[in-house]
């Protein structure tokens, strides 16, 4: 009688996992846990270290630091309201321009306006914008963008000067070139993530919309856009976060002026550029004040992200019917 060829194999497969396999499983699990923990610990450590270094400044200046408008090393009084204003103003402007442009581009690339191959080329080109170093953006802003928009700013100031937005004319570095460059810098982030958001919407949704007799634009604006809204909002939040923290290009373009102005063409300052330009020369107390400013920037970014998450959740509930 022939022996059963499966006996050996069957016993091998059904045997309990060996201690080696247990160990491997534990090890992998441990590695994954550790990697996740490292990220959390790193963030916690950065916040802790910033807080520790900023602590003397927090005690000394308290809330006045956030609403003060002078940065006087000689008198050792520091306030960052102009920088907070400049950071939020420039990022909002950039989001308005870059966000709008990015979403429009995503619609153009995904809603059958273009042949697939052409749209892929397009998309790659847009994503290449993300690979340009920010120093190059800064130089481009100084030597190309500023001379380009200077005449326009002068015209706007002369004809519409009564509107606070155009209250001054652009002399050189200022809010407008900074916001424009920021818009270009966040464009690839917003466009790429929005494209993915549109691609995730099942094709049958669009077919159903067409089936109900919508025009193309009705389908895009009333069906596709709301359905993809959570992804698009995520794109905008990420773009805004990037704009808040951008340093080098802004240090070169914003004008490093410690003032609060509504004018698009006035020089201003941002938190990140204040940190970059003041750190190398800072005295002991100034360093602590700068740490405090860094902490404030971190808090602003965190608030923006939480707000973004909340809006995203609300949008998902409203448009995608998920709890």
């Amino acid at each position, binding site marked *: 009688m022939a022996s059963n060829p499966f006996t050996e194999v069957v016993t091998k497969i059904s045997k309990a996992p060996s201690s080696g396999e247990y160990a491997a499983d534990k090890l992998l699990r441990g590695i994954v846990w550790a990697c996740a923990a490292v990220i959390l610990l790193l963030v916690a450590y950065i916040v802790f270290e910033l807080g520790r270094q900023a602590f003397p400044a927090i005690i000394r200046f308290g809330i006045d630091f956030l609403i003060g408008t002078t940065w006087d090393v000689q008198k050792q009084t520091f306030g960052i309201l102009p920088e907070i204003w400049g950071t939020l103003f420039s990022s909002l402007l950039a989001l308005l321009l870059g966000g709008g442009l990015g979403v429009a581009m995503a619609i153009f690339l995904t809603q059958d306006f273009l042949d697939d191959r052409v749209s892929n080329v397009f998309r790659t080109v847009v994503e290449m914008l993300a690979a340009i170093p920010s*120093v190059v953006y800064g130089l481009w802003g100084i030597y190309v963008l500023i001379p380009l928009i200077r005449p326009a700013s002068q015209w706007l100031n002369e004809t519409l000067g009564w509107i606070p937005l155009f209250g001054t004319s652009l002399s050189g570095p200022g809010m407008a070139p900074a916001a424009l460059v920021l818009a270009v810098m966040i464009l690839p982030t917003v466009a790429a993530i929005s494209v993915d958001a549109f691609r995730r919407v099942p094709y049958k949704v669009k077919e159903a919309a067409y089936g109900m007799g919508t025009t193309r634009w009705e389908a895009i604006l009333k069906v596709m856009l709301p359905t993809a809204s959570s992804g698009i909002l995520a794109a905008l939040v990420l773009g805004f976060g990037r704009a808040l923290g951008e340093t080098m290009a802004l240090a070169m373009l914003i004008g490093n002026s410690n003032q609060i102005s509504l004018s698009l063409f*006035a020089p201003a300052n941002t938190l990140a550029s204040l940190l970059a330009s003041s750190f*190398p020369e800072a005295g002991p107390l100034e360093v602590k004040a700068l740490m405090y400013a860094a902490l404030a920037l971190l808090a602003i970014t965190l608030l923006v992200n939480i707000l973004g998450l909340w809006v995203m959740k609300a949008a998902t509930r409203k448009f995608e019917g998920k709890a």
Partner: protein
Amino acid sequence: MYPLDQPRVLVMQSLRGFSRTLVVSAAVLLVACSSGDDTVVENTAELVIRGAGATFPEPLYQKWIDSYDEQTPNVAFEYAGVGSGKGIAMFLAGKDPAGEVYGGAEIDYGASDAAMSDADLEQVGERGAVMVPTTGGMVVLAYNLPGVDTLTLSREAIEGIFSGEIKHWQDERITATNPDIDFPRRAVTPVVRRDSSGTTYIITSHFAEAFPAWRDGPGVGKQIDWPGSTMAVNYNEGVAQRVNITEGGIGYMEFQFAKRLGLPMATLQNKTGGYVAPTAAAGSAALGSAPEVPEDLRVFVPDPPDADAYPIVGYTWLLLYQQYPHAEKRDALKDAVLWSLTQGQPIAEDMGYIPLPADMVRLARAKVEAIQ
């Protein structure tokens, strides 16, 4: 191959030239944000003597180092322009307290446009300090106004510009002294130093001396809170660069930095009421009008009374220790400083600095020779 290769090489070279200008301008902009020690070059000589400080005389010191190094192949001098405030801090600590400049290695001399205060001197400790003026310089007001090549500013206008009261170039206080110029409608944008700077010290001392309101207001210092809406940037070259790209901008910097970028410089009104352009003669007249030189050589001329004098001038100092433990270093450094006080002076004059008056050279040499 050769004829074909030729144009390509040319293209390559012009490309390289272009990228170099890009790199240089990037570097100029970068110093606005970095610690400024990028200029440090590694040396292979046996003895390396390092110093750091003011950016005001930096072009001159680099030139001196280049010329002098040819004579002394075994000794290499290095200088890092980090600003006067940091120069003094580094001199007091003997190295960069932050550990950035020269990687935190020991320095042998410092440099500053504002002589060390008595409080600073007390911190030097047992090594002692000697301050040696090396050259004088003019702080010029360079501006960027399309179509305006000459600009004359009265004291009233200067005060108005830097106190933030004059907002645009068509202000009467400016047009009064420039009747022939048709000023463009541009905002006045003063460009000032953000970092701790001897150049700021020189110009604010002048303002305090010339304008009583300034003394009680913004005051004198290496780093002050400027009134009005100013652009604040790091280092002399940063100010020059910023003025260069800002139409309607006006900033203060050492003569050489404005000249290098081809920025026009304003003619200023001095104490006697005369209008004087920044020239070597006007600078010498200003330094020459100084009262008697005190024993420690700390001379300031915040507002020279001479009729031909350019109003904003100052000396720049080398900060040396009274005692050097390392004999070879001491001798090499002494020789180099003596050389710059004598043979170095014509080089300074060529570069637009003001050579030291003969009396000052004599006193300074005595100081250097007494170093142990």
